[in-house]
């Protein structure tokens, strides 16, 4: 099915057609937006810039219960993943992040949780028309209407949404709702191109990644890391709110006689992240931890998977309590190269 148009008046019907599946979409929470399950019969509004916490939890929950057991019991209960889910209105950068992270979760072994969730999930993205002030997706290979990682892309054309299927899953979804749709004409395509070009124009901040992945290891002892990390508080804001950060820890937890094995987001900015049982820590201070964060995204990941593990969403920069700005950090990296 080629590009289709959905009149915005039919948006609630579109959402209604998804009944039976879990719908996750951006929702207002005071003055901030976050992704959350949509109550039955409601149609989420999509006019927002971007959420503070990325939707990565839809595929990689902050806490994933791997198994449950009872003290003294012999049964181990494994949760069954069978909930079909549709994520509505995620931004192209966040979808691209999912595609980038999937390379790791499908690398030496298929991670059963991530891969299964991705199978069960349809990602319906919304192109950006109003990028944020710290967005820099074009600098790292993305764009306001990038389709990488998405199953279906929607573009807000005012009265209508333009719908373009990216994968078979997207095609299937379009077929399921075809009576709500109209064939899009050339004008719609032109309007989309115009909006995307305008959005790109609005992205003011840039990073120069030329030579960075190869050059970073040579800056291991450079004073820039001390300078960049001097004010770091060592909190998990930049990593937890990063759509590509995917480090996790696995712990057994008990509550009374009930126990569970969980895997949960971890942060390389935490002190105990690489703490050895012996007490030795190969990354003893925030300097080493900051250096690792930048190297992981801009060098190690490129080495292994041929793609920068940063999508330019700007969240780490927007929300760092002490103004550690990844764009400025990369400018300093370039200066040192």
């Amino acid at each position, binding site marked *: 099915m080629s590009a289709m148009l959905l009149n915005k008046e039919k948006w609630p019907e579109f959402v209604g057609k998804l009944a039976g599946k879990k719908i996750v979409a951006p929702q207002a929470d005071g003055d901030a937006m976050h992704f959350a399950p949509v109550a039955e019969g409601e149609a989420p509004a999509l006019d927002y810039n971007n959420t503070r916490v990325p939707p990565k939890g839809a595929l990689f929950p902050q806490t994933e219960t791997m198994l449950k057991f009872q003290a003294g019991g012999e049964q181990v209960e494994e949760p069954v993943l069978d909930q079909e889910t549709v994520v509505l209105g995620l931004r192209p950068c966040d979808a691209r992040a999912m595609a980038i992270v999937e390379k790791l979760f499908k690398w030496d072994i298929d991670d059963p949780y991530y891969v299964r969730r991705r199978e069960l999930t349809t990602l319906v993205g919304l192109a950006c028309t109003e990028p944020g002030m710290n967005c820099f997706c074009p600098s790292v290979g993305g764009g306001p209407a990038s389709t990488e990682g998405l199953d279906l892309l929607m573009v807000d054309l005012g009265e209508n949404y333009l719908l373009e299927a990216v994968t078979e899953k997207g095609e299937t979804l379009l077929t399921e709702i075809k009576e709500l749709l109209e064939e899009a004409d050339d004008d719609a395509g032109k309007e989309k191109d115009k909006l995307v070009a305008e959005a790109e124009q609005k992205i003011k901040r840039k990073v120069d990644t030329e030579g960075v992945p190869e050059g970073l290891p040579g800056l291991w002892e450079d004073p820039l890391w001390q300078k960049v990390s001097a004010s770091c508080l060592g909190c998990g804001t930049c990593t937890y709110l990063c759509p590509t950060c995917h480090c996790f820890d696995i712990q057994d937890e008990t509550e009374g006689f009930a126990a569970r094995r969980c895997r*949960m987001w971890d942060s390389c900015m935490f002190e105990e992240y690489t703490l050895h049982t012996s007490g030795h820590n190969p990354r003893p201070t925030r300097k080493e931890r900051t250096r690792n964060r930048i190297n992981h995204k801009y060098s190690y990941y490129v080495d292994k998977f041929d793609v920068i593990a940063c999508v330019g969403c700007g969240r780490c920069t927007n929300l760092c*309590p002490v103004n550690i700005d990844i764009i400025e950090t990369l400018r300093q990296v370039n200066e040192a190269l």
Partner: protein
Amino acid sequence: MDLEQLRKTAAEVASREDVKYLVGWKPGTYGYRVAPAFIENADGAAELIFSPLCTANLATYLTLVEELPVPRGQEPDDRKIALMVKGCDSRAVTQLLVEKGIERDEVVIIGCPCPGMIDDCLLAEKYPETEEPAEVKWDGEDFLLIRGGEETKVARDEVLAEKCRLCRYPNPVVSDITLGEEVETWELGEDQGVKEIEGKGVDERAEYWAEQFDKCVRCYSCRNVCPLCYCQDCILDRLNPTWVNRSVNFSENTAFNIARAFHLAGRCIECGECERVCPANIPLGKLNRKLAREVRDKYGFEPGVDPDAEPFQASFKPDDPEDFIL
């Protein structure tokens, strides 16, 4: 405040032989951000500022110092840290002195009398932030926003930070050097946040906080930014035994937030940093100010104003009211 005087004083302090570095504020990289600056010599002082955007409490950097083991044959670097403080920040320093978290001769305190700070979120609501770093100045009672060559007057009431509306100590309570003139205290607003909490019934209150703690992502930015959360071995990081599970759910999030609030009762100096940095927008200020008010009303104790005070949680008075003990 005269910036020339500030930079001159900072340059003198930063070049002192017994000072390792000076922590102050410098312009941020975009919009309304201001960044902490670490100044090691006289030249570095040229980038320092003191403006209505210097909301951050830098006292946290006194206890956030990471010290690696000193290699054999080398002496530890025992030089002082110089710190620029506003009134609220100086209360954090005072409380650290009371608790012996730091010693008085380890710091050089440069006091900046503070006419009130801006809540950058309120400012951004009215005047959206742009990529260009903006400058803001005090302008009589109000503020002056300068960006793109344009000056805009911003009314004080519209953007004054909540902690400043409630501030009783705009002048540093402890300092070695004070920059500029003392400012006059202003008429206090009512603490709407605490009033709102107190107006709720028990169930309603529980429901309110359940909703708030549910949003917590456990990034611990509130803990790390807090100048008075400085335990070397935090209960939240312990794995054996695990006091608070790492799982992010309502129960564990509540345990974390309540543990932190109680550990700060009678110690929180109401600088509002926890609420400012929370990426989940949890109104932590309300919680901490409520506890501060309880301690003030019930025990007549206010942290961070008297360096010779006994720590509240470690002292006992025979006439302490015991009306809540069953």
